[in-house]
């Protein structure tokens, strides 16, 4: 892991993305609770270290297929807050111009970002295919994607990892084990303590990482990414965290014990990283506050932009079904 140490600037950049993600989430959640949103909305609170730490381990030419709780990854790949918030409000200026809901379908191949669909985990084999295209063309690139603990119960988890092993594909699969699939706790999903155990059944490495520690997440991902790039094949990484809000905005998550949330709130990934940065003497509270302020301004700008943006023209509804 020491091979992939981060500079001060890199760490502050990571902090910025994590903070931006959290600020966006705080403001968007409030916005929806005020009844100003359109349709549903997923909070990614608690997932900042995973989405940013993994995304940061990629090179620009690598391709990533993030999920509904991976806002940090979208943002650091270059999807702008304006496009994101526009999409949340169904505006013509959104990532997909109002065709798909919330973060669904927020792909942009010019950013090497693949859009996801609801049907979990259908994006996982698609990411495998992206990785296989790199083998096909002999390109030193890597594909990465994500899967929730709940979605590992689906057969595609198995089909994809097995084929990734058979084709020695440069694929990194991040399991975001946030303890719940909607209302269903881990114990009702599986009878094993660690999902990473399953990697052995495919003959590939399986790692476990503390998902709220961004430096650890970065290091383990970076190692897997570079191994894949060098022809070493796929890796499974299980990042343990906690979903800190309901499944989606309408869900109060009364089924989650409050103590569990309190326990994980003490491991808040953004605060944890702030403490690490301060302890490492790399920054001071003033600089952190300044970054935080910058994030607030950017999110506010995105909201203002989105609110003023036009809705799509209904006359366009039948356009774009097919590529011409």
């Amino acid at each position, binding site marked *: 892991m020491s091979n992939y140490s981060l500079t001060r600037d890199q760490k502050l950049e990571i902090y910025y993305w994590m903070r931006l993600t959290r600020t966006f989430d705080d403001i968007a959640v409030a916005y929806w609770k005020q009844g100003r949103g359109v349709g549903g909305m997923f909070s990614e609170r608690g997932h900042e270290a995973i989405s940013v730490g993994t995304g940061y381990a990629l090179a620009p030419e690598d391709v990533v297929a993030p999920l509904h709780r991976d806002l940090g990854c979208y943002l650091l790949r270059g999807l702008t807050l304006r496009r994101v918030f526009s999409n949340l409000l169904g505006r013509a200026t959104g990532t997909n111009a109002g065709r798909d809901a919330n973060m669904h379908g927020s792909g942009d191949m010019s950013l090497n970002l693949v859009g996801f669909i609801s*049907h979990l985990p259908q994006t996982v084999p698609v990411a495998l295919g992206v990785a296989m295209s790199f083998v096909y063309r002999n390109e030193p690139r890597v594909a990465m994607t994500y899967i929730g603990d709940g979605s590992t119960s*689906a057969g595609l988890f198995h089909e994809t990892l097995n084929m990734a092993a058979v084709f020695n594909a440069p694929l990194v699969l991040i399991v975001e084990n946030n303890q719940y*699939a*909607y209302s269903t706790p881990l114990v009702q999903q*599986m009878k094993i303590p660690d999902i990473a155990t399953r990697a052995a059944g495919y003959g590939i490495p399986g790692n476990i990482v503390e998902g709220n520690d961004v430096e650890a997440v970065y290091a383990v991902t970076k190692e897997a990414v570079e191994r894949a790039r060098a022809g070493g094949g796929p890796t499974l990484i299980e990042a343990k965290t906690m979903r800190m809000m309901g499944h989606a905005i309408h869900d109060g998550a009364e089924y989650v014990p409050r103590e569990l949330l309190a326990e994980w709130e003490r491991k808040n990934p953004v605060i944890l990283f702030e403490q690490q940065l301060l302890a490492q003497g790399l920054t001071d509270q003033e600089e952190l506050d300044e970054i935080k302020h910058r994030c607030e301004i950017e999110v506010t700008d995105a909201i203002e932009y989105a609110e003023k943006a036009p809705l799509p023209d*209904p006359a366009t509804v039948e356009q774009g*079904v097919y590529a011409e």
Partner: protein
Amino acid sequence: MSQLPNNFGFADPEQIADTTRELTYIAAISEALREEMRRDPNVFVMGEDIGGTFGGAFKVTKGFTDEFGEKRVLNMPMAELGFVGAATGMALMGLRPVIEMQFADFISTAFDSIVQFAATNHYRWGAAVPWVIRAPSDGGLRSGPFHSQNPEAWFVHTPGLKVVAPATPADAKGLLLAAIRDDNPVIYFESKPLYRSEKGYVPPGDYVVPIGQANLARTGNDLSIITYGAQVREALTAAEQLAVEDIDVEVLDLRTLKPLDTEAILTTARKTGKVLIVHSANRLVGVGAEVAAIISDQAFEWLDAPIRRLGGLDTPIPFSPPLEDAYRPNAAKIVQMAKELAAF
């Protein structure tokens, strides 16, 4: 369909006290399930997030774990293909699983097991598969391409299944009871847009609406609208507006999509000679195409006008309100098409 037993008197005391018995569409579904589980120990529910204190994405099974215990309220891992297969195995042993798809959209995940195994089993080797899949369908709720679908045509095309689609609270109850008691795999499409906004009288206790019988929701002489699910309400609204303009519309609610009530379809088509078919599902090779084909074959000589169809567009279901509104049939669009047809 198996013999219908008497009312065992298990209706909820609160609801018996309410002599008007006005229930929402979703409460009627919940009541039917609860009463049938009280009546028949072989009936149980399975699905994602349906158990515990949560009671499902739409709370249809809220309180069921308390009343029936974990053995009869199976909270499943996210593996639709596998658990529909498991339901088939349980059904082969004489149990009567009622499976909740979290959204009808996800039924494609379990497709193989439904259309290949469950649907063909009785024909192939005579073993019955008496399960029900409840599929919360339809849109208009700004939920985007994956929480708004109406996939019934895939299943009506497939031999060996039965398919129902209630439009009222009473039918929601009566068709669910019929579906559970039927010895075949039945897909029960419930309409999300009706869940809490559609209220109506629901008979207490044992109330069964037989599978295969359409309902003449309104009689009229000028034109027939043949429809089902959430579009029945749109059609009735449209009929009111058309009445003002002296267009007298008949509305046939199909209720069952497989087997279709061909007699009812032909009767209304022959009566008015003008037919508009409406459904939320996309029009192309939809159930409405079959209805049009049946009429153009068997009621040809009675027709006074082309058969028109109104359905969803041949696009995924868009999220943004102006796009979804453009995509989706509604009362205003029905009025428009009906007027043109009446004037033909």
